[in-house]
């Protein structure tokens, strides 16, 4: 009888008050790439954490190569050959590559034989086609290279199953292609890969089969050939999404925002552009093109120089800190939600209060009643799903966290809104809501700068697109010119 390579049978897991997984059965074959999809909170990470020994299931069994396994801790899972590469890579940044690859299993023979580890690491890296010096400190590598180190580390442990949690979220197009090459090589070696991603295009490119979870239940499974993009989305969301990229804003002729020769030293050189009232102005480019720094610079969070900056006819003289930007009606919905947007350990009401305190407080008294009212109206207006405004932000899903960030800044009634990667890591339903918010804000006459690495959304939502390459504008596209192809050409400096 043929045995299934990995079989997780009838897995059920509850957390206080939540049924995270409801008898889910998950199986895959040797050398297979399986995409695991679902909205945030669907149970993907719980399933992975059970597979990797972080959690133990309440009910259900795990069989690997036909043998029943009981993973009591991550170490048990690693020893059995299950490796997880998390989005936040857990590498020792201060150690060289080879030390990371062999961390925890250095062969002991009167001390550590560094040159031996270096050799072994080099072999593994070469076999995978990675061009990384084993002696270099991991902290000096970029995200994509760090990911490769993590993969090498998994192989050094003889991993049979490698789980990749949103591996492409922070990669450039080119790096994504390279990762897919590597996944194909892993397949050839007989390694099974569980691939978690919000980007459906990638799933169709790299995976053999797909498993779709919703609300802790398996709602779909099968070969990818048997599914269309829309099938997967509809199964994930549990209802039909009519329009993935709603667009109904109408730009006016008046210029709302204008900069001349805007520079962020070292990142962005001499940019001049204007955004009209009601316009969604897209900013595209590869990772490292300077678009993130442009956002921080315009918001006063990074040092900048400029000849002129104008918001609704008001000249901005100095821009030394975000306070100057906020005073002049410019806000940034920051790219790194958890690092820059939120105080995770504080409640929804406190987070929303932060930039709005002066509305509800004088220096000697902060009215919690007014603050709560403010937060409750934000929760209603932006459809933030939370049991109460006193809920800690860290307990909300990614999409709802993002709505809190948007809410806290929009309540200042800004004129110019910069959204940096507003849909990163949030589920499909929440994405559509963010797009609608952008349209609604534009229709109130705001100027929207929409910075994103996801081309489909840039193409579908923007009225015009500015493309950056190495800190310079290489194209300003409008109308029919806005295509993924044109953007990519300009972003790689071909155009």
């Amino acid at each position, binding site marked *: 009888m043929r045995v299934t390579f990995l079989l997780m049978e009838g897995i059920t897991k509850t957390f206080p008050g939540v049924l995270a997984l409801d008898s889910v059965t998950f199986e895959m074959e040797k050398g297979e790439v399986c995409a695991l999809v679902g909205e945030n909170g669907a149970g993907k990470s719980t399933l992975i954490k059970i597979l990797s020994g972080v959690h133990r299931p309440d009910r259900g069994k795990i069989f690997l190569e036909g043998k029943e396994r009981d993973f009591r801790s991550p170490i048990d899972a690693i020893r059995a050959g299950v490796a997880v590469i998390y989005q936040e890579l857990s590498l020792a940044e201060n150690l060289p590559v080879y030390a990371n690859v062999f961390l925890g299993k250095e062969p002991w023979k009167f001390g550590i034989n560094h040159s031996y580890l270096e050799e072994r690491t080099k072999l593994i890296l070469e076999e995978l086609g990675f061009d990384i010096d084993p002696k270099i400190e991991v902290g000096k590598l970029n995200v994509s290279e760090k990911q490769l180190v993590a993969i090498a580390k998994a192989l050094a442990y003889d991993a049979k199953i490698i789980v990749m949690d949103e591996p492409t979220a922070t990669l450039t197009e080119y790096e994504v292609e390279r990762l897919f090459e590597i996944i194909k090589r892993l397949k050839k070696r007989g390694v099974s890969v569980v691939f978690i991603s919000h980007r459906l295009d990638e799933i169709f490119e790299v995976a053999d089969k797909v498993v779709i979870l919703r609300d802790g239940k398996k709602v779909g499974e099968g070969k990818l050939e048997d599914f269309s993009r829309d099938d997967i989305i509809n199964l994930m969301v549990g209802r039909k999404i009519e329009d993935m990229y709603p667009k109904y804003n109408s730009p006016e002729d008046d210029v709302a925002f204008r900069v001349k020769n805007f520079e962020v030293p070292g990142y962005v050189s001499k940019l001049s552009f204007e955004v009209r009232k009601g316009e969604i102005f897209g900013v595209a480019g590869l990772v490292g093109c300077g678009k993130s720094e442009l956002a921080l610079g315009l918001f006063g969070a990074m040092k900048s120089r400029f000849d002129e900056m104008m918001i609704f006819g008001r000249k901005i003289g100095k821009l030394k800190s975000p*306070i100057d930007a906020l005073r002049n009606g410019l806000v940034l919905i920051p790219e790194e939600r958890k690092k820059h947007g939120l105080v995770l350990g504080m409640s929804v009401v406190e987070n929303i209060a*932060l930039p709005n*305190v002066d509305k509800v407080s004088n220096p*000697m008294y902060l009215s*919690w009643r007014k603050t709560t009212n403010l937060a409750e109206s934000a929760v209603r207006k932006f459809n933030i799903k939370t049991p109460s405004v006193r809920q800690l932000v860290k307990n909300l899903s990614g999409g709802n966290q993002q709505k809190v960030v948007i809410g806290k800044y929009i309540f200042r009634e800004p004129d110019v809104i910069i959204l940096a990667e507003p849909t990163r890591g949030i589920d499909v339903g929440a994405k559509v809501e963010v797009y609608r918010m952008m349209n609604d804000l534009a229709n109130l006459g705001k100027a929207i700068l929409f910075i994103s690495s996801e081309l489909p959304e840039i193409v579908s939502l923007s009225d015009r697109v500015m493309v950056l390459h190495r800190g310079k504008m290489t194209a300003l596209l409008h109308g029919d010119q806005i295509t993924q192809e044109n953007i990519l050409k300009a972003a790689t400096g071909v155009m």
Partner: protein
Amino acid sequence: MKRIMEFFRRNPALGGLIGLYIFLGFLSDRFLILSNQVNILRQVSTQAIIAFGMTIVIISGGIDLSVGSVFAFSAVVGASILKQGEVLLGILVAMGIGALFGSANGLLVAKGKMQPFIATLATMAIARSFTLVYTNGMPITGFPRAFGYIGRGEILGIPVPVIIMLVVLITMWYLLRMTKIGLYSYSIGGNEEATRLSGIRVDIYKIIFYTISGILSAVSAIILMARLNSAQPIFGLGYELDAIAAVVLGGASLSGGTGGIIGTFFGALLMGVINNGLNLLDVSPFYQQAVKGIVILLAVLLEKKE
């Protein structure tokens, strides 16, 4: 039951206090009598006031090691003026010294981008040295009679130091819970960068937090001087550690973002009760530090455990 456990996990000091009250209440017939309870409050008042200042600094993600030395320096400078018979001026100057050192700490941390531990370690050494130079190592004694009232007086049977402590307690509670300064201390401790990007002048608020800590060290010093009718150059040695312990026992985390004044009060009280109880039970004072250390470990372990 779960709720009760959760409450004590968040308020480790209160759990310890209740335990100690039951324990000491049985073991010593003098422990629960009113005069002993008032005595405990009087003894903890100076420590608690310093710890209240430390609380806002620790919540904001900082630490202030200089409180003991600032305590001493503001005491001896104030004392030299009090000796001339100038009560009000002496008090104001002492508080001014506290404010000065506090704002210097704040400036070093906020504008100088120094780690709070290092910055206040340096000012701790400097203030102690100033104290020794200023006094030549000798105590300063002999203050006006009226000044002694602050340390030894009573209103309706309640010692003045206890009243001052309660006033500071209420003020600081109000500051942390009902003003934006308090909100910002939590948000800076929770995520400084996100707070800055919300358009808040993080630097200025940090300076305010450390200044409050400096002023409260001086307030505490004034009470102790008035009670002892002297100012000693060795005042305040090790007070920073007691204050930090009280704050941590009160449920704050040294990484910032959590904690509260009421918790700190229970933390300070817990340590006062330990001292008092060991005295009543005739335990050698040599054991006091060990008992305190064990209590701190237990409290933090309890808090960590989920």
